[in-house]
């Protein structure tokens, strides 16, 4: 049997692939890299592209990644895949949107955080919850 290497492809939201392979070809930022078993430890970012996993001589699987990280250890390849295309200006745009939403909400903002008022309101809510719990006990 040919030598194999364990491959994991994970994203923040799910596990995409896990299993043994003969070779992995991944789109690293500086050009595609092919990883065979007993490769030296390597860490590199990935660009968007296809990851090819050679399961056996006549069987291979393709996965699309939109970027991420590739970690190689002699018997282990881990691909930390991004779930979205990452570009500096896209990220910037998303951040700006989150900021604007906060600003919009705070248009009628008071000068300082009103601890007393916030606590009073929370105390009321907690008292209500307690009353409900007690009522339930009495009923039973």
């Amino acid at each position, binding site marked *: 049997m040919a030598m194999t290497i364990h491959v*994991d492809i*994970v*994203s*923040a*939201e*799910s*596990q995409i692939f896990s299993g043994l392979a003969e070779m992995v070809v991944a789109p*690293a*930022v*500086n050009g595609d890299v092919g990883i065979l078993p007993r490769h*030296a*430890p*390597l*860490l*590199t*970012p990935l660009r968007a592209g296809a990851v090819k996993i050679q399961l056996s001589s006549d069987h291979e699987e393709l996965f699309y990644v939109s970027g*991420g*990280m590739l*970690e*190689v250890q002699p018997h282990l390849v*881990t691909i*930390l895949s*991004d*779930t*979205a295309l*990452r570009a500096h200006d896209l*990220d*910037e*745009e*998303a*951040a*700006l*949107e*989150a*900021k604007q*939403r*906060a600003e919009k*909400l*705070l248009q009628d*903002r*008071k*000068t*300082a*955080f*009103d*601890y007393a*008022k*916030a*606590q009073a*309101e*929370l105390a009321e*809510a*907690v008292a209500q*919850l307690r009353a409900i719990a007690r009522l*339930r006990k009495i*009923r039973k």
Partner: protein
Amino acid sequence: MAKSKEIRTKISSIKSTQKITRAMEMVAASKMRKAQERMRKSRPYAEKMRQIIGHLAQAHPEYKHPYLVGRPVQRIGLIVISSDRGLCGGLNTGLFRTTLAAMKRWRNSKIEMNLCTIGSKSSMFFRRFGANMVAQKDHLGDAPTLIDLIGPVKVMLDAYNEGQIDQLYVIFNRFINTMSQSPQIQQLLPVVADEEDALLTHHWDYIYEPEAQAVLDGLLMRYIESLVYQALVENVACEQAARMVAMKSASDNAGSLIEELQLAYNKARQAAITQELSEIVSGAAAV
């Protein structure tokens, strides 16, 4: 007969309420299972990253990334994660109480706070009391994606990079089991080193392409994002669990109310019949 008719209408209205709460209970139960599954799925990513970061920090003692180094604290960032919708018992209330207590402690030690709220409940709550909100995001739904978080997290990371904040925390509900969830304050920045990583003593290093610092930058950003994502997913699971329990007790309460009303209805009906009978009998006696 007027009274018994009133009771009958009341019973039917409570029955329809009970139908709604029961349906909500079942919906929440199935959503909770899905959320738990997502929670489980998101774990390997963060674990793997923690390993790599631990290794990097060790292999490169000369290069200290700002995310890994603590500094004197004057202002901190808080990411508060709440649900978007109510009807989930005391889940959000408990979270806000913990947050408020912590905020008070920080304020007493003269530390300023920047808030980033995720979920409309926390946005509304902190807006009402005039907190210093710098970023906001809501309506992420039951299946949040990491893409939604890139914006708000970037605002906080940028603030940290520029020195506006010196620490970053995330506040969310931790899922313990269906019956219990507990509010949790977790430190994101500076990254807290794991104890077990210190056990890795043998020396070896990665080949970095292009260079170690750029790799570390990208890695740490994704690591923080994935931690916030995990917190968010966990909070969704908590929300559904809390809603399920709240709706179950609402259905039970409706059931006992119906029982009581049914009893009252029967009594009223019997009283009416008895009265009618005695009227007939006394009428017959008069003839």
